[in-house]
């Protein structure tokens, strides 16, 4: 899953400029806000407002795996389930029920009466056809991997280079009647219902299959808002309330404009100038003053983004678990966050606090700053010879905090020779895959669905797609499998927690932080709520004026 591009190269210089100029301005956000972009209505219901997004990479549900496209699609579409913005707990939306006796064969029934914006009904085929199209290899959709665990996936999307698909549809998808379909998985997966709110699983109308390219310019969904006009790239996407919406959270406003910005600093200035209503990414350097400038209109929300320092366990120097623990305990996360990253909270687990059943502090002492004990463990492990290299991807704002970590290691553990290696993301990922990293490396993780499984299996199972550590613990693998085969979502979570405890004991990665979203909005709107997916609950935003 892709992280939001952090305004890359320009950010440091722009940040300097903004910091230099930002001091004296006493909150231009209030006052004469925003008659520029709307006609304005007097009632609480109605009106229109604008929301910041970055440029989506795609507006096809099967190809959208970054937050900006997801924000738009979340307004235009509704999936089988959705998640409570506070607890991330799933509830049925288009689905009437999602049931399975063996966690392998899932029977999904739909509610009657849902329609797409073009008037056509949402049926079982709307899901089955969309999923088959997304999984079909030659369509090369970014979210195809979501269907990997459905039976017949390998026939429509063979992994071998140059192999032709032998089928166009997955055998594991079966339409029973207009409102019922059956999904057969390759292996039991207790968390399956939790995954179904992801963009990849949205239903698509027949109009999509006819012309996917035209569809992307103006997606036709079944959500509370429908697109007006087209995706004006680099500028905006406008959507209006869909009056025949079948869900119980119809849009309160008449219309929403997704204003596309390439720089968050510019968006922040536009918010101050009253041209923008909601910004869910206040630039980190403005966070200290934003709380004052915006008062109650400044909101913080937990996001699912997790940052860690991984160990290349394939390098013999990092084999000793005491060394890994010592390095973790020598990091003063609070100090780093206070000084450098106000948009972070310290992490003491591998699983974000926004997922279902999140635990307070499973890492315990290994994630607490304790320089003395760190030193002791470090010496027990025999110290560290030669240069220690910290790896990270360049141009994404990781220079500052990795430098701080290095200083803390120098101070607490007496490691004198610490070096840095920063590479462009593509090259960096290549080296990670090839196991050519020589020291602690920075990576992140953003959830696709709010289950601990999503934070654990891809990263720490022996065959995990993002296991860059070379980590393998048969007990962890077994517990994850058992969690997948558990009787219910909840029973599965219990087992995942046990797996997480084992992983934390082994510490293949140092948990560093979870991100906090800092959002602010104009006086024109109220009831702005952000969920664990960094998405704003747009239907419930009210325009006051």
């Amino acid at each position, binding site marked *: 899953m892709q992280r939001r591009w952090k305004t890359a190269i320009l950010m440091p210089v722009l940040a300097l400029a903004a910091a230099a100029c*930002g001091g004296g301005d006493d909150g231009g956000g209030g006052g004469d806000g925003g008659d520029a972009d709307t006609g304005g209505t007097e009632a609480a219901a109605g009106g229109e407002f604008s929301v910041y997004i970055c440029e989506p990479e795609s507006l096809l549900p099967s190809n959208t795996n970054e937050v900006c496209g997801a924000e738009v699609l979340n307004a235009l579409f509704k999936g089988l389930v959705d998640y409570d913005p506070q607890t991330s707990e799933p509830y049925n939306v288009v689905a009437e029920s999602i049931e399975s006796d063996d966690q392998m064969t899932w029977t999904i029934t739909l509610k009657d009466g849902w329609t797409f914006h073009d008037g056509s009904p949402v049926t079982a085929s709307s899901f089955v056809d969309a999923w088959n199209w997304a999984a079909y290899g030659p369509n090369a959709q970014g979210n195809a991997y979501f269907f990997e665990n459905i039976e017949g996936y390998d026939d429509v*999307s063979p992994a071998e280079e140059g192999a032709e698909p032998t089928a166009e549809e997955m055998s594991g998808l079966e339409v029973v009647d207009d409102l019922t379909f059956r999904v057969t998985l390759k292996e039991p997966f207790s968390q399956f219902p939790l995954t179904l709110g992801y963009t990849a699983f949205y239903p698509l109308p027949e109009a999509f299959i006819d012309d996917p390219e035209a569809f992307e310019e103006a997606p036709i969904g079944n959500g509370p808002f429908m697109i007006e006009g087209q995706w004006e790239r680099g500028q905006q996407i406008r959507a209006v309330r869909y009056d025949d919406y079948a869900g119980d959270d119809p849009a309160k406003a008449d219309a929403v404009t997704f*204003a*596309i910005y390439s720089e968050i600093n*510019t968006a922040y*200035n536009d918010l101050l100038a009253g041209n923008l209503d909601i910004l869910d990414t206040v630039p980190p350097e403005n966070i200290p003053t934003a709380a004052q400038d915006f008062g109650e209109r400044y909101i913080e929300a937990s996001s699912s983004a997790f940052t860690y320092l991984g160990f290349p366990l394939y390098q013999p120097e990092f084999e000793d678990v005491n060394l890994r623990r010592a390095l973790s305990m020598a990091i003063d996360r609070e100090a780093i966050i206070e000084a450098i990253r106000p948009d972070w909270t310290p992490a003491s687990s591998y699983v974000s606090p926004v997922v279902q059943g999140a635990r307070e502090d499973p890492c315990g002492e290994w994630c607490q700053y304790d320089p003395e004990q760190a030193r002791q463990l470090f010496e027990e492990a025999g110290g560290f010879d030669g240069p220690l290299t910290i790896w990270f991807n360049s141009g994404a704002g990781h220079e500052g905090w990795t430098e701080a970590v290095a200083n803390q290691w120098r101070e607490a553990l007496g490691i004198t020779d610490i070096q840095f290696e920063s*590479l*462009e993301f593509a090259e*960096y990922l290549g080296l990670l895959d090839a196991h050519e990293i020589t020291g602690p490396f920075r990576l992140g993780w953003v959830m696709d669905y709010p289950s601990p499984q999503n934070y654990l299996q891809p990263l720490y199972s022996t065959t995990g797609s993002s296991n860059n550590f070379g980590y393998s613990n048969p007990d962890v693998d077994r517990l994850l499998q058992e969690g997948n085969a558990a009787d219910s979502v909840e029973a599965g979570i219990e087992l995942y927690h046990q797996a997480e405890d084992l992983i934390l004991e082994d510490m293949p990665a140092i948990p560093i932080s979870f991100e906090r979203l800092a959002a602010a909005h104009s006086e024109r709107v109220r009831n702005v709520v952000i969920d664990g997916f960094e998405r704003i609950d747009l239907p419930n935003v009210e325009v006051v004026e």
Partner: protein
Amino acid sequence: MGRYVIRRLLQIIPVFFGATFLIYAMVFAIPGDPIRALAGERPLAESTQAELRERYNLNDPLPVQYGKYIAGLLQGDFGESFRGRQVVDILRERFPVTVRLALFAFVFEMVLGVIAGVLAGIRRGSFMDNLVLVSTTAVVSIPIFVLGFVAQLVIGVELGWLPIAGIQQGWISYVLPGMVLGSVSLAYVARLTRTSLVENLRADYVRTATAKGLGRGRVVGRHALRNSLIPVVTFLGVDLGQLMGGAIITEGIFNIPGIGGEVFRAVRTQEGTVVVGIVTALVLVFILSNLVVDLLYAVLDPRIRYD
């Protein structure tokens, strides 16, 4: 004259191939696998990656990739981005925006720059001369992103006079970014005009003109200034290309959806076809604007002839 123009236009062909190949090779040389990086920490499905590599010829060696690209180009196919967008569509939607921005900056710097230069030049050492000297020095020494942000905060946020982001409000959206983009060149134009004019005012032919009894306005306007504009026009010709290619910071600050941000994005994601498409278009602008400059010499200075 006609033959000269044709010869110059024919020169575009080798420049075109050289430029496209160089750029293509440079993007090719960026280390790392662009398809691997498409989805970040979690890799795309194997089959998806294989399909994309196949579709964008990423398994081929450089000469084959470039050959396929040129072959497509000759059939009018500019290729597509990794997200399946036609490069032609990207150009069609982004190029006019950058052209509008650059033209606004160009007119701004040309008109104000020449006026300021003339006012400073006709009375050397006067208050006006010093004012132009000091203010242009100030502008040249401030980095453009500082200028951009200050202008945005003061004129846009504090005073609320002009829109500060996007192009939704039509031509007025281009005013502030255009002024910021053109400001540094404006300073150069003013300086060049002034220096050149001061020098020419001391030349023999100006004294002759004055001795003939021509009015001051006519001497300065028709004789001295016209001759003084040759270095200015040279600078402006090069600068038009510079403004378009160098607008990336200004476009970023003012959220102008031009080619700057797109090139930046495409370089980061190693999308060779997109980078080559856009940069080649820029190269053509450079070549053509330089041709126009060379032709303008003949208009400004009758002694120059192209046969």
